[in-house]
């Protein structure tokens, strides 16, 4: 085996005179960065092991620690930046596929930031959400249905099953395995309290969480992990995972070190082996096959639950979405190329797929042009960072948004992007019991509730400013957006006018 090439770490741990050698940092760091040196009676650190998760910084009682970007550098090169060089070193050393976690961190146009929201002046009044009702509630699913009446002329409910959402936000799929029991518990409890849904991901549903079934979306992915009759029956809706924004074209990957007893039970897989989902569903090689799975799941659950089909935003997204809208799906979830992941090949995460804003705008437009927008709801994710992103997504045409990374941040994640290593110091992306217990379920639940509640207030304020008091009147309302710093092509694809252009 080749010798590993030395690379210094990107970050340096800096300790100041306030350190009292209490060794809390040492106990808190699963990466073993900090060590107490008996000889010098002081703390030392190995910065190369640091993933910059900030656990030690936060826990240090004397504020003696900080982590800074290392200024150690190779000879400056605009083409060969340090990361590119180091990645070559890594692959030359180990001969493997580079793995990464969380969403694509690279610079590139974030279209959310290039769209501006409207407000009312003079000709119609803004509405004050503190004094008037402001509605963020909506129903997800198919809205088109026949108008039928009973003998007395009363309208009969002919609608397909729908999901009632109090805010247009849901927690996106994160499997038990990729994240911890405590993280799942907090997501389930918060979703239930908020009147929204969390998605258990492709790793099955722990029996402890069956009680939150009415707030749970369960996934059926290509690995079929943990899928059984009761799993489907417990859920409020079933999501067929065809793809994921962080890794379009490949299946999920749970490293063996994360597969403990509980995970193996829930996933119905052997203990301590990698859980790798196949790239395709091997019973779905075409759109007509997808239709069969959709109807199989509907039949299996007595046509009582909406079926979501989740796809990654790729070049041909418009035609794919149109096909899905005609295949019996009730909801299409589209995941953009900046979407997060617990583990994905770096090259795929950073290079495959397209931005969610463009995918959403084009899919919504096409489904309307074909007159089938009412057949499905559209849920978008990857990545939604704040309430303004939600407003912009809805105005472009989304029914609701999935948030993943933002929810993890609320639980304490500091976006160090080392989930695949399984040593999350925040107790989120790990299965090590000593780390998992650091995440307090009640506190995590409250933080998630706070986050979504805060976003709800902000959504209400922005809607009120526009004189819109129902989220339904914002959906697809593209005149409420204007573009800035965008090309004509980008404006055309987004279907919005440039800032300053009159209505």
């Amino acid at each position, binding site marked *: 085996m080749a010798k590993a090439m030395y690379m210094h770490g990107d970050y340096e741990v800096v300790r100041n005179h306030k350190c009292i050698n209490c060794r809390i940092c040492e106990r808190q760091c699963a990466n073993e960065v900090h060590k107490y040196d008996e000889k010098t009676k002081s703390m030392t650190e190995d910065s190369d092991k640091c993933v910059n998760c900030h656990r030690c910084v936060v826990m240090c009682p004397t504020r003696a620690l900080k982590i800074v970007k290392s200024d150690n550098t190779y000879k400056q090169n605009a083409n060969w930046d340090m990361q590119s060089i180091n990645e070559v070193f890594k692959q030359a050393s180990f001969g493997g596929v580079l793995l990464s976690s969380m969403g694509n961190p690279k610079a590139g146009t974030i279209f959310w930031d290039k769209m501006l929201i409207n407000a009312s002046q003079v000709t119609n009044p803004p509405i004050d959400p503190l004094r008037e009702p402001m*509605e963020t509630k909506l*129903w997800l699913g198919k809205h088109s249905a026949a108008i039928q009446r009973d003998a007395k002329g009363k309208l009969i409910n002919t609608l397909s099953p729908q999901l009632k959402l109090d805010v247009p936000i849901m927690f996106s799929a994160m499997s038990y395995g990729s994240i911890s029991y405590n993280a799942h518990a907090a997501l389930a409890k918060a979703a239930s309290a908020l009147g929204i849904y969390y998605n258990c991901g492709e790793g099955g549903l722990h029996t402890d969480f069956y009680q939150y079934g009415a707030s749970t979306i369960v996934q059926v992915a290509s690995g079929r992990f943990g899928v059984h009759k009761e799993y489907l029956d417990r859920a409020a809706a079933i999501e067929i995972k065809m793809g994921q924004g962080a890794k379009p074209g490949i299946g999920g990957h749970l490293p063996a070190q994360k597969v403990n007893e509980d995970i193996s039970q829930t996933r119905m897989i052997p203990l301590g082996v990698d859980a790798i989902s196949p790239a395709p569903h091997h019973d779905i090689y075409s759109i007509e096959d997808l239709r069969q799975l959709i109807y199989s799941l509907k039949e299996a659950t007595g046509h009582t639950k909406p079926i979501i089909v989740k796809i990654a935003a790729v070049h041909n997204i418009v035609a794919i979405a149109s096909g899905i809208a005609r295949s019996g799906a009730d909801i299409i979830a589209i995941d953009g190329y900046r979407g997060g992941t617990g583990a994905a090949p770096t090259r795929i995460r950073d290079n495959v797929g397209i931005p969610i804003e463009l995918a959403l705008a084009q899919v919504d437009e096409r489904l309307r042009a074909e007159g089938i927008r*009412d057949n499905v709801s559209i849920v978008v994710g990857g990545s939604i960072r704040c309430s303004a992103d939600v407003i912009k997504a809805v105005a472009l045409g989304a029914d609701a948004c999935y948030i993943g990374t933002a929810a993890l941040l609320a639980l304490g994640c500091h976006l160090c992007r080392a989930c695949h290593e399984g040593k999350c110091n925040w107790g989120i992306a790990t299965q090590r019991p000593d780390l998992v217990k650091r995440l307090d379920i009640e506190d995590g639940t409250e933080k998630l509730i706070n986050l979504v509640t805060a976003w709800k207030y902000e959504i209400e304020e922005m809607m009120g400013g526009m004189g*819109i008091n129902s989220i339904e009147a914002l959906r697809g309302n593209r005149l409420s957006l204007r573009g800035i710093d965008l090309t004509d092509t980008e404006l055309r694809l987004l279907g919005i006018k440039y800032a300053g252009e009159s209505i």
Partner: protein
Amino acid sequence: MLLKEGDIRNVSGCAITSVIDRSGKKINGKSMIDSIRVMHERSNGLGGGFAGYGIYPEYKEYYAFHLFYDTKTAKELTESFLIKHFEWITEPSPMQTHKIAQIQNEPHIYRYFLAPLPKKLQSSQLDEAEYIVHTVKTINSTIEGAFVFSSGKNMGVFKGVGYPEDIGQYFCLDEYEGYAWTCHGRYPTNTPGWWGGAHPFALLDFTVVHNGEISSYDANRRYIEMFGYKCSLQTDTEVITYIFDYLIRKKGLTFDEVAKVIAPSFWSTIANKPKEQQEEEILLRRLFPSLCVTGPFSIIVGFEGGIMGLNDRLKLRSMVCAEYGNLAFIASEEAAIRAIAPQLDKVYVPAGGEPVLYTLYEKGGN
């Protein structure tokens, strides 16, 4: 150069008024002129119009088309199209008008009474109403300088650029009698004034006059355009008319149900209603969420046999209703009603989202 309606989205403030005699007795068009005149300050001279119902009893079986032509060519093209698809009940005639100084730059205005050619109708595989809608759409979108602004039976729209009281005089409305009238005075903020852009907006026998600026416009427009409508004027009134046409003519909802779609009660209000009512209102909101209309509006919809008034659910625009014997009134201001009926049995202000429906007694009216 300023762009005309259709090239830009157009918003405006306005005055609206209406009257119906529920016994079916005819009311002279002059009363509408007298009613709207007192709301002069609510218009700015850039548009006014009227819709009269029951005004063509001698031709009540036939579609009365009112057209604006900018050029002789537009007229020739339109007539050659119409002759292929309709039987002409009367010779085309210029609309009777009375030249006054206040009204300038008027287009050529013609009226036709038409019946679809049975063979053409049959081969189109459309019902008669849809055949008419297609005809109107084809003329308005493909013949430059031609605009059908009225296309119903036994009713007609009269509108143009000017103050509504002058427009009424220009069209000699004192020579028409109908059982119901609606009227509109316009206060647009960004139009040079185009005759076709004045209101009422009409499709078949539906007419809408509207005061407000809806904030849901693009959500409503993009939804309704899925069903074959094209919002070419980009006005609130146009999209509201299409919503009524879609929900009533194509989906078979009642006016009351339409009100619960476009100005639904808040979820919190619905939660406190009796169970059966809750079920109905929730179902309608779930069926047509994208037709929820927000932002200020007061509208009066005219249709064969009645009128309906509706406010947005926060009641951000004024709207008053009144009754006197068989007469019923809906208007922006009480003064507009008192101007033509000083004595009233009842005056009331409907709540936001509460529809007011007055129909002929023979249609089961109240």
